[in-house]
């Protein structure tokens, strides 16, 4: 399915490694901007990361950086409008986003308003409304999961309808992704595990689904290898800066992979389960991943088998006969989930989450078949099949 034709796009400059933060002032200047608005949330501020970033920026000549830190976990168009207002008040010419998925998505939306004008991001919903280059946006992720630092999508809640609205445009791509181990050192075990499995799922779905191509495959394989080697290590020694940096890179690689090849059934189930049961996205990913691979197995046995190399390493891969590799890949993922349950209490089944009732499953299945993520799943999914996967994942 990878043959024929493909497209690949990633215009984001990656600044990865020790002292990556200190490179930011110079890189901003290269793009001709002097006055960024720092967008973040209260949790990141409490963790002391704002001070670390501001100190690095000030030492690089950017004085009195205005800060907007009122972004809730579930950001909305009113939050976007407030941040845009602050940016205009301070005549900012660029944005620095410091945080997880919600902060990054909010910053992308703020950039639309400050670059193109207006007070309501909703006016830019639909295709083609974001029609030209925006001001520079640098993203400093504080979780290693969403990959939003290298995607062209922003999801923001509409306060009026309560529904999540997604915005998509090549112009939403950030200008730089800054991966500095200091930014994720303090991430608590549960979030480290959940976001790590989100990144793992991005990479695996990218590799298994229909839009895979040689470039997305390369990024996906490297991402899987880094997560398989480092996620458990980091949970065992959370201050391991090298391991943290590996996970941060893996999340960005996985983001580059899936933004060029899309995701599949794990995400379709995750989006709908998350909406119905208010579960964190990464938890849903980890719960559904092995069950979905089993569902897709008969049409993607080769691809899933190839994943044994990055998942388990060369020795195990060489030792495992070809026909057994796909099953071994899935077994390896199950083993990883057991470790994550032991170290971070990351649920392995819907029952273990304690938030989903068996009676919810038919409604989740019904919503799931309308999710756009299914378009690139290698197998078509009927309502009955979605329900069967949900039943198995319930535990």
């Amino acid at each position, binding site marked *: *399915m990878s043959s*024929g*034709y*493909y*497209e690949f796009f990633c215009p984001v400059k990656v600044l990865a490694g020790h002292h990556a933060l200190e490179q930011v002032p110079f890189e901003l200047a290269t793009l001709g901007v002097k006055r960024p608005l720092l967008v973040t949330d209260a949790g990141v501020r409490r963790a002391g990361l704002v001070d670390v970033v501001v100190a690095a920026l000030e030492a690089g000549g950017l004085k009195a950086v205005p800060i907007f830190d009122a972004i809730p976990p579930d950001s909305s168009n009113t939050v976007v409008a407030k941040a845009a207002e602050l940016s205009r008040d301070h005549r900012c010419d660029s944005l620095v986003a410091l945080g997880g998925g919600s902060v990054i998505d909010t910053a992308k939306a703020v950039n639309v308003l400050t670059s193109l004008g207006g007070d309501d991001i909703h006016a830019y919903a*639909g*295709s*083609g409304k974001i029609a030209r280059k925006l001001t520079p946006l640098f993203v400093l992720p504080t979780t290693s999961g969403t990959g939003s630092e290298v995607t062209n999508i922003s999801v923001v809640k509409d306060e009026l309808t309560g529904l999540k609205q997604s915005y998509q445009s090549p112009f939403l791509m950030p200008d730089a992704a800054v991966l500095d181990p200091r930014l994720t050192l303090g991430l608590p075990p549960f979030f480290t595990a959940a976001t790590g499995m989100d990144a793992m799922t991005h990479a695996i779905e990218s590799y298994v689904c*229909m*839009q895979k191509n040689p470039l997305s495959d390369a990024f996906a394989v490297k991402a899987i290898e880094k997560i398989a080697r480092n996620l458990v290590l980091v949970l065992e020694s959370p201050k391991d800066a090298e391991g943290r940096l590996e996970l941060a890179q893996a999340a960005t690689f996985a983001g580059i992979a899936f933004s060029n090849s*899309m995701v599949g059934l794990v995400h379709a189930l995750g989006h709908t389960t998350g909406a119905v049961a208010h579960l964190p996205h990464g938890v849903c990913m980890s719960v559904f991943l092995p069950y979905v691979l089993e569902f897709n197995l008969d049409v993607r046995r080769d691809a899933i088998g190839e994943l044994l190399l990055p998942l388990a390493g060369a020795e195990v891969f060489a030792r495992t006969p070809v026909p057994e590799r796909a099953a071994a890949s899935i077994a390896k993922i199950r083993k990883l989930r057991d470790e994550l349950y032991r170290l971070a209490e990351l649920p392995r089944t819907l029952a273990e989450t304690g938030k989903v009732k068996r009676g919810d499953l038919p409604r989740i299945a019904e919503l799931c*078949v*309308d*999710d*756009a993520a*299914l*378009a*690139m799943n*290698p*197998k*078509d999914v*009927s309502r009955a099949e979605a329900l069967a996967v949900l039943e198995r994942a319930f535990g």
Partner: protein
Amino acid sequence: MGATDPTVPFATDATPRRPVPYGAERLYVKTLLKLVAGLLEAVSETDEVVAAEVAGLPDGLLAEMSVFGAPDVGLRVQVRGRRLVAQDFEGASDEQAPRIEIVFKHITNAFLVFSFQEGTAVAFAHGRMVVEGDLAHAMRLVRCLDRCETIVLPKLIAERAVKTLRGLPLAEQLPLAARTLGSLARVLVKGIR
């Protein structure tokens, strides 16, 4: 430097030739899209599965398929309750109605899909077309189209068109196909408005 360097001779017999001229592709796709529009209307009358899917779409929704660079080629159907009603693509459409659009990036892309050389999902994976509008509605429309192809196409061709063929037993498919084609004839005779 390739073509600008006069010292590099070109083998004239190696010049790529098109298997089907663009003009022929355009005529074929234009004709077939008219047929598909009629077929979608017909199948929503004869098949309960499609009618149930359509019932889940907002009333009045316009679904369009078009081709970049070929403004006269396309199809438009409108949701009316549990039915899809084919409309004249070149006629005026309700600008206020909610709309979902599938745009092929080139006439050749549309030709490959509608001559069943490239499946719809594969074409999408290859970036041959873009979808504009509510993606949940698009998923539903694709299910209608898949079901439509499963009913009227022979199994061998349908297999190439859809991702996972959910074949009907022949004893079920043949009468349903006959009823649908009868209905299609009616739609075409009455004319697509």
